């Protein structure tokens, strides 16, 4: 069954994900679109998913979303972040479970849906279709960032085992 993962291990990963989230927030987004991010944090969730299991990935992702919003954001950013993070996490879990896709592909899907989730929430809350353009831009940006994160993830997987930290 499941090995008991160390609390400390999860804590370190949450902290790392938070740092990545903070770092990428410092980089000005070219399109000034709400939610346009590099998606660096997904690297932690992705590796956790593959090396520690679904539950760990969900926990790390969830806590990271919550803490980042509480510390650096507000109610709005929590909504966007939660929508994007959870949707992307779910998609990645499902795709990985099928066993038919490699990590890069799973990451691409995660990147896309991370952004799409945020934009959909924005469209619902702001009641505007004007964001439809951003949907397209973010779809492509998510694809690209997911691809890069996926490559990074596969490369790191060769050397790092999160469950043996």
């Amino acid at each position: 069954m499941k090995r008991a993962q160390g609390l400390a291990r999860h804590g370190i990963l949450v902290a790392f994900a938070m740092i990545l989230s903070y770092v990428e927030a410092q980089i000005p987004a070219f399109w000034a679109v709400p939610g346009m991010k590099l998606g660096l944090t997904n690297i932690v969730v992705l590796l956790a998913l593959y090396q520690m299991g679904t539950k760990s990935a969900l926990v790390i992702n969830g806590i990271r979303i919550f803490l980042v919003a509480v510390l650096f954001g507000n109610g709005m950013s929590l909504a966007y972040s939660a929508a994007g993070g959870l949707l992307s996490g779910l998609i990645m879990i499902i795709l990985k479970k099928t066993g038919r896709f490699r990590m890069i592909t799973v990451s691409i899907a995660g990147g896309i849906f991370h952004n799409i989730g945020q934009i959909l929430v924005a469209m619902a809350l702001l009641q505007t279709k004007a964001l439809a353009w951003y949907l397209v831009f973010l779809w492509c940006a998510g694809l690209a960032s997911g691809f890069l994160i996926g490559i990074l993830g596969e490369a790191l997987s060769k050397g790092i085992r999160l469950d043996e930290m």
Partner: protein
Amino acid sequence: MKQQKWKKADGILIGIFLVLGLLGGVLLFLLGERGQKIQVRVGGEVQAMYQLADNGRYHIEGVEGGSNTLVIQDGKAWIEDASCPDGLCMHMGKIMQQGQSIVCLPNQVVIEITDAGAEQSVDGVVR
């Protein structure tokens, strides 16, 4: 982790994602109608409305003394100057289609192309 290989399933899924992305862009571009009016909102409230035919430079007063310069020319609109620290609104390109908008978050300024009725604002003032 053992070496992963590209499989057909990967190609198909990624291919679908790429196509959807492209399709979305193409669809929006084709279906988008050229807008007629452009609405300026500051802090959520409509400040002004212009016609896309009203060529010129317009000053927008954002929140907390911020300012943006809206330029309308040849049926397109963009922000040329802004007091905000990031200046992202100036890089959002020129808009001309129904529904497109440019946002300046620090100044809470939104310029949007819309034909929606201007219930709260006037198109112009005749003196």
